[in-house]
C-alpha cells in the first residue's frame, strides 16, 4: 500500500526547465518515478530528459493524465504554481520551493480548501514510498521498503533518522518531509490518519522540532484515534526562545513551542521519545 504515492503516481514537474527542476526530474526518473510531464510557461513543446514540457498544468494533465505535481518554481512564483496545480485537477501537490510569504500561503490554502487536492509543503523535501515512487528531492538510495511510516518537519535530519531506521533492519512504507514553514498544507495529524489506515504501515516515526503546536496536536490525536505505535524525536532542546532556527516555522515564541513541552506532550500519552537520532530505530523495533 504506502500512502499518497505509489507505482501508479504520475508526476508533472512545475518549473521543470529550471536548474533544480531539471536535476531532480532526472533523479526521480532514475528512481523509477513516472514523471510524465513538465510545465514551464512559454517553453511548451520542449523536452527535459525525454519528458514533454507544456505551457500550462491543465494542458499537461489533459495530455498525460498526471495526478501529482512537484513544484520547483522560484519563491516569487511558487504560490502561483500552487494555485495553478489546485485549479487543474491535480490530486497531490508537493511544493519543494521555499520562501513563500506566510500570508500568501494562508490565501492559497483557503483556495485549495474547496478542491479535492492535498498539499505537502511548501519548503519540504517531498516524499518517498521506497521501491515504488519518490516525489521531491530526497536521496532515494538511503530508503528501503518496509513497515515504518516517517513524517518529519525536517530534511537532512529525516535522512539521518531514516538511515538509523534502516540500519536497525526495519524498512519504510512512506517517508514524508512535511515542510519547515509555519503555514503548511497537510500536518502531522493528517498523515497519522492516513498511516492508521495503511496496511503496509505498522508504526510511525514522527520527527518534530520547536515552534507551533503540531506535535501537541499529534499527541492528542494519537491518544484518541491511533492504534499503531509512534516513536518521536524532537529537535531544538537547546534552541533559545525568540530566534528563528533556520526554518521559518522553527521558533519558540511567547514561551510556547519548546522542545520540552512537545516531549512532555508525547510522553504523557505514551509515545516513546528518542533522546538522540540513533535511538529511533531501536525504540521502534521494540514496539512493533
Amino acid at each position: 500500500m504506502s500512502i499518497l504515492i505509489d507505482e501508479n503516481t504520475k508526476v508533472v514537474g512545475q518549473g521543470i526547465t529550471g536548474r533544480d527542476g531539471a536535476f531532480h526530474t532526472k533523479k526521480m526518473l532514475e528512481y523509477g518515478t513516472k514523471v510524465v510531464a513538465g510545465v514551464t510557461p512559454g517553453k511548451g513543446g520542449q523536452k527535459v530528459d525525454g519528458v514533454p514540457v507544456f505551457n500550462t498544468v491543465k494542458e499537461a494533465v489533459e495530455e498525460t493524465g498526471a495526478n501529482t505535481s512537484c513544484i520547483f518554481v522560484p519563491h516569487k512564483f511558487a504560490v502561483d504554481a500552487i494555485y495553478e496545480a489546485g485549479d487543474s485537477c491535480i490530486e497531490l501537490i508537493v511544493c519543494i520551493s521555499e520562501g513563500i510569504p506566510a500570508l500568501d500561503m494562508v490565501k492559497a490554502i483557503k483556495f485549495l480548501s474547496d478542491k479535492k487536492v492535498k498539499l505537502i509543503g511548501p519548503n519540504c523535501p517531498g516524499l518517498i514510498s521506497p521501491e515504488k515512487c519518490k516525489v521531491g528531492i530526497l536521496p532515494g538510495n538511503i530508503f528501503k521498503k518496509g513497515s515504518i511510516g516517517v513524517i518529519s518537519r525536517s530534511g537532512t535530519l529525516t535522512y539521518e533518522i531514516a538511515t538509523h531506521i534502516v540500519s536497525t533492519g526495519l524498512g519504510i512504507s512512506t517517508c514524508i518531509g512535511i515542510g519547515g514553514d509555519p503555514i503548511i498544507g497537510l500536518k502531522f495529524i493528517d498523515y497519522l490518519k492516513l498511516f492508521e489506515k495503511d496496511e503496509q504501515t505498522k508504526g510511525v516515526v514522527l520527527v518534530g522540532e520547536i515552534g507551533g503546536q503540531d506535535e501537541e496536536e499529534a499527541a492528542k490525536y494519537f491518544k484518541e484515534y491511533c492504534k499503531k505505535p509512534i516513536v518521536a524525536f524532537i529537535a531544538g532542546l537547546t534552541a533559545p526562545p525568540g530566534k528563528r532556527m533556520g526554518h521559518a516555522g522553527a521558533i519558540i515564541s511567547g514561551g510556547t513551542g519548546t522542545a520540552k513541552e512537545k516531549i512532555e506532550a508525547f510522553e504523557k500519552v505514551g509515545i516513546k521519545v528518542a533522546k538522540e537520532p540513533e535511538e529511533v530505530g531501536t525504540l521502534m523495533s521494540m514496539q512493533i
Partner: protein
Amino acid sequence: MKIHEYQAKEIFQKYGIPVPFGKVAYTPEEARKIAEEIGEPVVIKAQVLVGGRGKAGGIKIAKTPDEAQEAASKILEMDIKGEIVKKVLVTKAIDIESETYLGIIVDRGSKKPVIMVSAAGGIDIEEVARETPEKIHKFAVDPSTGLLLHQARELCFKIFEDPKIATKSSAILLKLYEAFIKSDASLAEINPFVVSTTGEVWALDAKINIDDSSLYRHEDIEAMRESQSIGTDEATEIEAKQKNLSYVKLEGNIGCVVNGAGLAMATMDLIKRYGGEPANFLDIGGSSSPEKVTNAMDILLRDKNVKAVFFNIFGGITRCDDVAKGIIEAISKMSISLPIVVRLTGTNESLARDILTLNQVPGTALIPASSMAEGAKKVIELVKKTVNK
C-alpha cells in the same frame, strides 16, 4: 524580522492608527529638545528589540525637558537583556482611562490570521493567555474576505462597555488588520491600546514582526533593519542570511556547521546531551560549495569563545566527496588553528573520508567521525583538552 516601536508606529500612522506624537532621540540633548517641542509631560522609551524593557527600567516619565534629558541619559547605553540601548522614543504622555489589548497573528493551527482582543491590556498578553485565557477573545479571519466591519465590531463590543469607544475601536482594529496584511506581518500588536481621560483612543505601544519571506517585496521595511543593528549579534545573523546561511549565536564553545535546520538543532542538542556547549546554530543549506564553507567558517570564528568546530553533513543528494573537497579548499585559504571534527554521511562517504585524510592542511587538524554521535563525542573531548591546557 523584528522592528522597533518607533518604526512600528510609523507603519501604524501610514494606515491611520492614532499614535501619540513623538520623535527618536540618540542623545540626552536631543531628548530634551523633543520634550521642549512637545511642551507637555513626555515618556522616554528605550528602543530595543527584546521584550521586558519596562521591568528593566527602560521606560520613564518626564514632566519637564530637564527630567527628559536626565531620563534619556539613564536609559541610553543601558544593557537590556544583552541589547545596548542606542536610541529612545520621546513621546507625549497620555492620561490613561483604560488599557486594552488588540493584536493579530498568523495562526499556524487554523492557517489563518487570528485577531485577539482583551480588556486586560497593558500587561504581558502571554501571561493573560496562561492565567486567564477567558479574557482573550479570538477570531480567525477568512483570508478571502479579510476582516469584515461587523466582525471587528463584534469583538470590540466584547471588550468595551462604551458604545462610542467600541465603534471607534472597531475602525482602528480594521486599520490594524490592513497594516498587518499590507506589511506581511506575522504579528501586529497594540498593547496597551488606551482610552485617554478625554475620551480619545491611542496606540500607546506598537509591535510588528515582519515575515522574513516577504521582505523581497517590502524594501521600505527591509531598510528599517539596516539602520537598527550595527555591531550587534543580530548584525552577524543578518550578514549570514545575506550569504544564504542561517546563523544564531549561542553561549557555548563548540562551533557547529551543519546542512539542514533540523539536523543543525539536533547537533546542538546532541553536543549538550554529551556534556558540551554549542556555540551556535548554523545551517549552510542544501549545496556545500567551498565559498559557503568559507563564509560559514568566517562568521563562526568571529565568536572568540569557539574552541573547536564540528562539521555535521548529511550528503543526501549532494555527494559527500564534493563536500569534502569544499572543506579542504575552504580551510586551505584560511588559517585555522582550531581542531575540526568532520562527519560526512551519505552518497560517497568513504571517498569523502579519504579526501579528508589525504589532504590535511598544515596547521588545521581535521578529525573524521563516522557518525553524528561519534563526532559530537570527539569534538567535546577536544574542547575539554583545549580548555584544560
